[in-house]
């Protein structure tokens, strides 16, 4: 049996024509066990691992999205395969160590049971899908709103109700309309001024400040001018008429200096 498998190696040709759709990596593994006609308990890891990997390559060729779940499982298989190549050390009391495949086998057996259970649920479902009950309408007996049996109320319902309340509350209490307040930063003003002030052309400070849109911007611009002076990036000259003129100095602005300014 084993030698057959080894010769067989890859996936059957028919696969290349019709790619089955699997519910997940475990489903694929079960399928591989089936087409190789082996017992789950006796799973030939090396062969299955190669075929699993080949399936993933096929998916890639077909530009199918390979879910992370498959990749994770492939890594597990490769790890298991390598473990099996190493001789197993006997345990202290001389018994043979646990079969490294045990965990995988148990998972597969459990998954197979679940698949079978799902299949029988599917059969029941296909018959019972045809059953109709009467919609609840208590015949004008009670003018009650729909009631839900306390036994059927779960956390999910409670969360649903909370969501209803919150959405409705928000709908009935809309946020007060607010005009976003423009904020002026010293750094913005700093950069703006650096661009307009030149070494050879006088720049009139008061004229600039008067052109600002509001008091907040004036304050920011004024602080920016002080900052420029502090860093020796500008020099001032006051005229006899009281005008304050600004000139750019030769000093270069350092990056860390800009970053230090309030943004």
């Amino acid at each position: 049996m084993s030698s057959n498998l080894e010769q067989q190696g890859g996936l059957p040709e028919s696969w290349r024509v019709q790619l089955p759709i699997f519910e997940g990596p475990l489903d694929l593994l079960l399928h591989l066990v089936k087409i190789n006609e082996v017992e789950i308990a006796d799973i030939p890891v090396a062969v299955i691992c190669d075929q699993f990997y080949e399936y993933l390559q096929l998916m890639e060729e077909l530009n199918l999205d390979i879910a992370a779940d498959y990749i994770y499982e492939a890594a597990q298989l490769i790890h298991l395969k390598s473990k099996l190549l190493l001789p197993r050390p006997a345990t202290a009391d001389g018994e043979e160590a646990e079969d490294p495949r045990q965990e995988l086998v148990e998972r597969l057996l459990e998954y197979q049971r679940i698949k079978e259970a799902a299949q029988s649920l599917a059969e029941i479902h296909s018959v019972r899908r045809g059953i109709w009950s009467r919609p609840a309408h208590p015949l004008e007996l009670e003018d009650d709103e729909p009631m839900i049996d306390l036994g059927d109320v779960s956390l999910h319902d409670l969360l649903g109700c909370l969501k209803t309340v919150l959405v409705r509350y928000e709908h009935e209490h809309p946020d007060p309309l607010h005009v976003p307040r423009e904020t002026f930063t010293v750094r913005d003003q700093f950069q703006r001024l650096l661009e307009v002030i030149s070494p050879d052309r006088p720049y009139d400070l008061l004229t600039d400040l008067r052109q600002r849109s509001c008091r907040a911007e004036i304050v920011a611009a004024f602080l920016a001018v002080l900052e420029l002076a502090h860093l020796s990036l500008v020099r001032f000259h006051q005229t006899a008429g009281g005008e304050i003129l600004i000139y750019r100095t030769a000093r270069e602005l350092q990056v860390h200096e800009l970053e230090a300014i309030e943004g």
Partner: protein
Amino acid sequence: MTDSGEMQAALEAVLFVASEPIPRGKLLEIFDEGEREAAGEALDTVVSRYGAEAGKGVLVEEVAGGFRLVTRPELHGYLRKFFEVTGRTKLSMAALETLAIVAYRQPVTGPEVQDYRGVNSSGVLKTLLERRLIKIAGRKQVVGKPFLYRTTREFLMHFGLESLEDLPPLEEIEDVFGAQQTPLELESL
């Protein structure tokens, strides 16, 4: 060819599920055209069968140009009694909403609950108190000194929670219900 028994069964099933009177013609449309005459006879059989049998609680009524199944009027008392019996374990949506507010905003007062829900909630709070899902936990030291409500141990048991800390945080609503619905700004509350 559909046999009469199956026709009767099909007609009965449709009448059972429908909540409004169905005109004869519409009822017979579930069968092929060639079978409508036989189906008409089957319908008459269903109607007379419901009328004749003893121990029937339901009859076929012809009203407003259609047929419908209704309970026999003289059984009204039993139905009323039944709804009293089942009503004891039922909660209205209003009660559930209130319960959700108390759970997430406890301790909370009646007026606060009313504010969240936009409607007077004292009746619902009373129901929840009777069901032992909430309890009075003191009074709030504000004008009027309203009662403060909290959820009970029964509440925790009902929802399989060990403690209030196990209540899913509000953000998890998105996980459970999906975010594609109305975007909810939780911070705004």
